[in-house]
């Protein structure tokens, strides 16, 4: 499966997210911006949930490119220690079981699983047996 955009993930297996380190300040951002102000930097695979919400209605299209048939999903902000807090989906957890601080690990999920050639987006999933 192809990523929704170039330059989001590293090429390794399993992949990591590709952030950008600002050359002047050392600040890490995600995604890595185009241009030469930042150097690409692979980000940690594991972190902790910093905050979240559940998207309960279908976002407007454009720009949303997810399936027409909408099922709510979790938007997470995940703190990758010492690097940056990134926004991504949170999967494999019930809405009422989500807890800020829970340990999570990077995965890839299809934006539209029914699509002929699904595009994958960044997501995190709880680490089995992990404790908040």
């Amino acid at each position, binding site marked *: 499966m192809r990523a*929704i*955009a170039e330059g*989001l993930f590293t090429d390794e297996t399993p992949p990591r997210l590709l*952030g950008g380190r600002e050359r002047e300040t050392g*600040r*890490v*951002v*995600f*995604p890595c911006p185009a241009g030469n102000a930042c150097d690409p930097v692979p980000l940690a695979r594991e972190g902790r949930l*910093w*905050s*979240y*919400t*559940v*998207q*309960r*209605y279908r*976002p*407007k299209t*454009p*720009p*949303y*490119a*997810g399936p027409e048939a909408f099922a709510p*999903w979790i*938007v997470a*902000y995940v*703190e*990758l*220690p*010492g*690097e*940056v*807090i*990134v*926004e991504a*989906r949170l999967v494999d957890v019930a*809405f009422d079981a989500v807890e*800020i601080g829970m340990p999570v690990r990077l995965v890839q999920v299809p*934006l539209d699983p029914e699509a002929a050639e699904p595009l994958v*987006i960044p997501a995190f999933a709880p680490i089995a047996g992990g404790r908040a």
Partner: protein
Amino acid sequence: MSDVCIVGIGIHPFGRTDGLSGLDQGVFAVRQALADAGVDWPQVQFAYGSSDAAGNPDTMVDRLGLTGVQFINVRNGCAAGGSALFSAQMAIKSGEFELGLAVGFDKHPRGAFNALPSEYNLPDWYGEAGYMVTTQFFAAKIMRYMHMFDISHETLARVAEKAFRNGAHAPHAWRRQPVPIEEILAAPLVSDPYTKYMFCSPAEGGVALVLASEKKARELGKPLVRLKAATMRTRPPHSFEVFAPSVDVVADDSAPRGTATRIASADAFRLAGIGPGDIDVAQLQDTEAGAEIMHMAENGFCADGDQERWLAEGRTEIGGALPVNTDGGCLACGEPIGASGLRQVYENVVQLRGDGGDRQVPHQPKTAYSHVYGAPGVSAVTILER
């Protein structure tokens, strides 16, 4: 330096007005404000106008009269109205002019604001994945805040319940039916933890304020409502803002982060020479219920976490120690971006004049505070005194 005074106020009711353009509603508000001040359009020396989605404000000279007046348009996100007011008071403070206008209006399509990534310097995939949704950000922001400072769902609901109850007494408000707290809590979720009653909606409306130098205000014989401070500030490093694919990590994340609001507020209090404890009535940006909660602390009125007690004790009710959002705020009035910040100042002038009717703050308030906040980390504050 002499004070700038607000000598006339006008408003077109907020909500939905089919058949009237945003500009029409702005013109309506200007005429009402001029009549209130007892001045004619040709006396107006300058105007600053704000509109986000309803066209160029300066085109209203067609309707008001081609007097050659200086008319500058302002776009500044949710701080647009506050920025127009800031600019207008500077024009008088500088000595250049004695009488002028700040006007704001808007008319947005129904439903959530529809933003595209390219307008925010973001990659297309960010929108395709479903993240160009303002409600997501506001929800994630309060979720973090509730976790850090033990704010309950019930406290969020209390804010919304108060808004509709206050709005019922404001003729310019949109949603004027009280809603029981149980219904607010049980309503469908839009973005957790917020139910549909806890978000304001894009709306329509217009507000105009006539500003004068103190000398001119005395000539007009109006009660002196002084603009003691007007500030507009942008965000400091590390703040959490709308449409953020990433947020900075900080060494100590147990304390609240810096915000544009904290800067604008502290500077406004410094300019006015008073503190939060001296304020008698406040209008705080409440595009969602949690915004009012967070902004109570960011503007210095209480410590983070004290909101739980403040709301339970009714301290922000119209009869409380610090009445907040006496006309129901954005939750009851909706948010026409260009007009919203000026509505707060309109409401404060009403309160300081004692014209609030059933929503009047008791004991003749002498100081009033207004605050807006918007994307991507802008804030405007005013302090009025009579």
